């Protein structure tokens, strides 16, 4: 099952990911069940799920491409086009809103000069509102990439913004 290495297609996955995929698929009673795990792995590596990626998953799991595409388009966590290198997700839901979540979101938007679901001009940061991420007791919360930040006061938001900026400068 190494169809990717044989052709000179632009879409290719790292050997590590391919090895993981080969381990995951047989664990499920049905191949189709591996759709979400495969999409997660590919998004981790590529940053988003392209049409080619969806087709690759479909072929790997012996499904019609639409069966993968309908999954990609339904679940909010799958991106269909590239987003910023850093993904700022501010919780929008009630307990966070009652504790100033909207002001925190505004701070991030202002800092990177973006609207919701927009990526900053330098391609660094995407700011998004997400629904309750099950940490309402430490509201307001912000998840940056995979890390959850709790009790985000205005001062803490400033720090987080600075950290993102510092990290961007180092990277470039």
């Amino acid at each position, binding site marked *: 099952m190494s169809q990717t290495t044989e052709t000179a297609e632009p879409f290719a996955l790292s050997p590590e990911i391919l090895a993981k995929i080969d381990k995951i698929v047989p664990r499920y009673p049905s191949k189709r069940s591996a759709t979400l795990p495969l999409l997660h792995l590919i998004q981790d590596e590529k940053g988003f799920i392209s049409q080619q990626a969806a087709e690759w998953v479909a072929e790997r799991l012996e499904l019609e491409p639409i069966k993968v595409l309908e999954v990609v388009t339904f679940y909010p966590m799958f991106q269909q086009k590239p987003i910023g290198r850093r993904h700022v997700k501010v919780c929008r839901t009630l*307990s966070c809103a009652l504790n100033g979540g909207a002001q925190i979101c505004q701070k991030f938007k202002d800092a990177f000069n973006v609207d919701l679901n927009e990526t900053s001009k330098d391609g660094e940061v995407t700011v998004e509102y997400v629904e309750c991420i099950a940490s309402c007791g430490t509201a307001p919360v912000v998840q940056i990439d995979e890390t959850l930040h709790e009790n985000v006061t205005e001062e803490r938001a400033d720090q987080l913004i600075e950290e993102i900026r510092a990290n961007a400068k180092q990277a470039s």
Partner: protein
Amino acid sequence: MSAGENRILFKNIDQPGYGRDIDSYMAAGGYETLKKAVGMKPEEICSEVMDSGIRGRGGAGFPAGMKWKFLDRKSGKPIYLVCNADESEPGTFKDRQIIYKDPHQLIEGMMISAYGTQTALAFIYIRGEMYEGARILEEAIEEARAKNFLGDNILGSGYSCDLIVHRGAGAYICGEETGLIESIEGKRPYPRIKPPYFPAVLGLYMCPTIVNNVETLCHVKHVIERGGKEYAKIGKPGNTGTRIWSVSGHVQKPGYYEIECGAMTYGELINDLCGGLRPGRKLKAIIPGGSSSKVLRADERFTGKLKDGTEFDWGVGDIPLDFDSPMAAGTMSGSGAVIVMDDSTDIVGALANINAFYAHESCGQCTPCREGSLWLKKVTARMIAGEAREEDADLLKSIADQIEGRTICAHGEATAWPVQSFILKFRDEFIEYARKQAAERKAKNAQPAAVA
């Protein structure tokens, strides 16, 4: 632990020196109950769970023993066990504590449940945003596998069962058990119609399936440890055991509190355990069981008769923390998520926030839910944007009334109940809100004329 708490599931959580690794867990007696369980007959496990009276902690409060009994064993098909770790009902953050801080308790509870139901393969469906949580569970599973607490021939019992962590991807509807099943099958999480798709009969891969919440499955461990009848002495008849309440919103000490069912009231939880409201603030309303439960106004009174015939006359703060009492007060304990709102809260804004959630999360299969939730959201969004009308209160209620009871899954009710209850209980405020805006609009329109 705060005074008044009775920590059974959370006994070790947040204790100094207690880690989430298997050594910490085993030093505290972990996996001893699994050893005991595999020495019992599977039917005995099921009957202990039945005797315990334990009810589901995920939202509906259905007795776990009964659910297990409905498993279609005659079909000869493999049985699946799924732990619902989607924790997506707004206000809820209890399962997160177990997953991140004591994952082995969940694994032990699951393997006992798997053995009792003779499950062929078990799953933990964890919400996708809990990246770290999924890694923690994967690690814990490998630790448990190395000690033969799961996998092949568990503890020499001849029983084998593997456990797969399956990550969601940000959709609330995956918390609904049949949507969750579809999601594990690799599809859009469209909830299935019941009947015929009761999971215990036609669940995952059309095989008999048990779906239970994280907290429920952890309780199973304690039921087997103590014995069902002994466990049932905790709490009250029909409302046994402890429950974990997630408290958020306008309280001084939000957090999670494990309380014996019926041992405390909402008032005691908010005022004593959570340190009350912020200085100078008064209580306005409580959402008692996740954002889909019907709101309670601070000055409401509830009278009536409980199932056992005892009469009650409660203020909001007097409602006991269990399953049946919030139901008697016309709402529900749901997922145990208490959202507190003080008198600074803009009640129309709060409902607008809730409406936006349910509109975003409708899966779109049923017209009343898909369209209705969107209309509700649009009306409240227009209201908070300064275009409120007096008739909006009735409009909102009529839309909600046309969703309730007309959909495939309970997301329809989850959408309708907040609206119905907010309008019923804060009608004056909605109307006042609209009048004030109308006056402001009029003043604004009149201004240029006055200048000219």
